């Protein structure tokens, strides 16, 4: 017997803002309501709920998912929270996929919420506690360190130039200018703006980084027989993959994300993709930092190692190019409420593949897209292939 097919049938999201007046519960509820409205369903039609939200430390809330449950529409429903750090936003839809593919549920709501602004004075300080409590935390490591260390290694190994990496930030922030929920859309930003921005942790500068944000995104999943009743335009989850590399991140070469490769190959195999560069029309790689998008395009096998930047130089990555990258604006432009930012990419593919992305619409009736997120200590790859 083959696997049950699972479709995305609805999606909704809040604006991504620096600091939201709404509580996490309220943000979740707004996203859920919009997702249900978009496919003319009610919460009574939902059989199970999956929650994705990143560390409890942001909110100072223990068992955060339990607190968020009523806002997420989980009242008296099967409800579970998965997490794989920054990869959570693309993992939550995978969790929703296995809820439905298991045959236990015909519909499943997937909600990702993040309220990073609660942490005082700055959300970044919460990341101190992601480092090993005995062998690393005493050094007072900064979250920026690991990105800077990885970026430096990447640039050194493949000879990638900073002025080329800046093209990523420019494209994504410009794309985001067309996203109604974006926090940092900047239609006129230039490479010089990025290169002249404040140095945080060399080689990382201010404009290389996505902003911390508050926001929520929700999608509705349905089994094939239900999906076809709900909509004429279901978008299928064709492949899923995830992978967690060893925690000993100082024992691996950071120049290449092999965990993304393993996850991508798993998803491509399930989706029947043998030549990803030909068979994928849109890519939404995870881009919390500009070089990360390049790193991940390579892990996704959409570019050779060290060569992803060519996609930006030759225009392939542009919204009108052969393989648009982050037409949404990505995390660099739309904002980075961690788990919600990942699920935003799934919502973007949903709208793009249905031809409903408005000003952001990729031309040429795209048929298939891939979304990917990354997380933990340079460690997690999560990949979803969607197609119509």
């Amino acid at each position, binding site marked *: 017997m083959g696997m049950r097919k699972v479709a995305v049938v609805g999606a909704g999201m809040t604006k991504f803002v620096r600091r939201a007046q709404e509580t996490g519960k309220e943000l979740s509820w707004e996203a859920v309501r919009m997702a249900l409205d978009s496919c003319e369903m009610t919460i009574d039609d939902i059989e199970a709920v999956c929650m994705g939200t990143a560390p409890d430390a942001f909110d100072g809330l223990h068992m955060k998912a339990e607190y968020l449950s009523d806002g997420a529409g989980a009242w008296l429903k099967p409800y579970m929270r998965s997490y794989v750090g920054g990869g959570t936003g693309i993992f939550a839809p995978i969790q929703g996929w296995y809820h439905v593919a298991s045959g236990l549920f015909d519909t499943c709501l997937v909600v990702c919420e993040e309220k990073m602004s609660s942490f005082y004075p700055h959300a970044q300080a919460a*990341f101190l506690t992601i480092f090993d409590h005995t062998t*690393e935390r005493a*050094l007072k490591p900064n979250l920026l360190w690991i990105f800077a260390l990885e970026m430096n290694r990447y640039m050194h190994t493949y000879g990638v130039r900073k002025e080329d990496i800046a093209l990523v930030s420019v494209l994504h922030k410009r794309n985001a200018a067309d996203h109604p*929920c974006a926090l940092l859309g900047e239609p006129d930003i230039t490479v010089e703006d990025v290169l002249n921005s404040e140095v945080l942790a*060399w080689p990382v500068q201010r404009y290389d980084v996505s902003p911390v944000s*508050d926001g929520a995104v929700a999608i509705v999943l349905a089994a094939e027989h239900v999906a076809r009743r709900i909509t004429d335009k279901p978008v299928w989850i064709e492949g899923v993959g995830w992978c967690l590399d060893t925690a000993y991140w100082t024992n691996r070469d950071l120049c290449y994300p092999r965990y993304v490769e393993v996850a991508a190959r798993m998803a491509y195999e399930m989706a029947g993709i043998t030549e990803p560069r030909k068979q994928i029309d849109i890519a939404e790689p995870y881009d919390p930092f500009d070089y990360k998008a390049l790193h991940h395009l390579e892990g996704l096998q959409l570019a050779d190692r060290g060569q992803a930047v060519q996609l930006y130089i030759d225009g392939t990555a542009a919204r009108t190019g052969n393989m648009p990258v982050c037409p949404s604006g990505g995390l660099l432009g739309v904002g980075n409420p961690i788990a919600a930012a990942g699920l935003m990419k799934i919502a973007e593919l949903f709208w793009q593949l249905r031809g409903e992305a408005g000003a952001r619409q990729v031309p040429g009736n795209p048929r298939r897209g891939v979304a990917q997120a990354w997380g933990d200590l340079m460690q997690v790859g999560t990949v979803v292939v969607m197609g119509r």
Partner: protein
Amino acid sequence: MSKQIKDFRGTPLRESDFQEGKVLYVHDALRGEYAWDTGIAIGHYLAGLKKGVILGARCDHCRKIVVPPRTVCEWCFRPLTEYVPLQDTGTVNTFSICYVTWDVKRIEKPEIPAVIEIDGASPGHGILHKLGDVNPEEVTIGMRVQAVWKPAEEREGAITDILYWRPLKEVKKR
């Protein structure tokens, strides 16, 4: 959506909204305190640091020496039981020059975190630490470095028993 939907919810606040008392909020500080058991492998590692020695662990099956030590090899799942003293010299695998602290305070004199591959461990096997006694502009990937230890009587069995790593002035062999 997203074409059809005109009204996306979400209400941004400004810093002034708080200063002017337009929004109320509750402030609370977490009180989470822990005493983590170091266990066998990391217990050995810390005891080694106290003596001024960096310990690794050998996997005979994979034929490599890893650092920090662990009780199981993550690649072959065989137990690691032999601890191996490594040298306190190494090679910079990658580094950063960081102008903000972990809690986002701007600093004038940057910190230089680095992954340092430890001599005696298998190639590519390093630890996270900081560089010092060096002009940030002169740091390069591949630079040879040496640990600067706390005085023996001040060591407490912690990663901070190594103060930082500084450039190694090696005698060139002919």
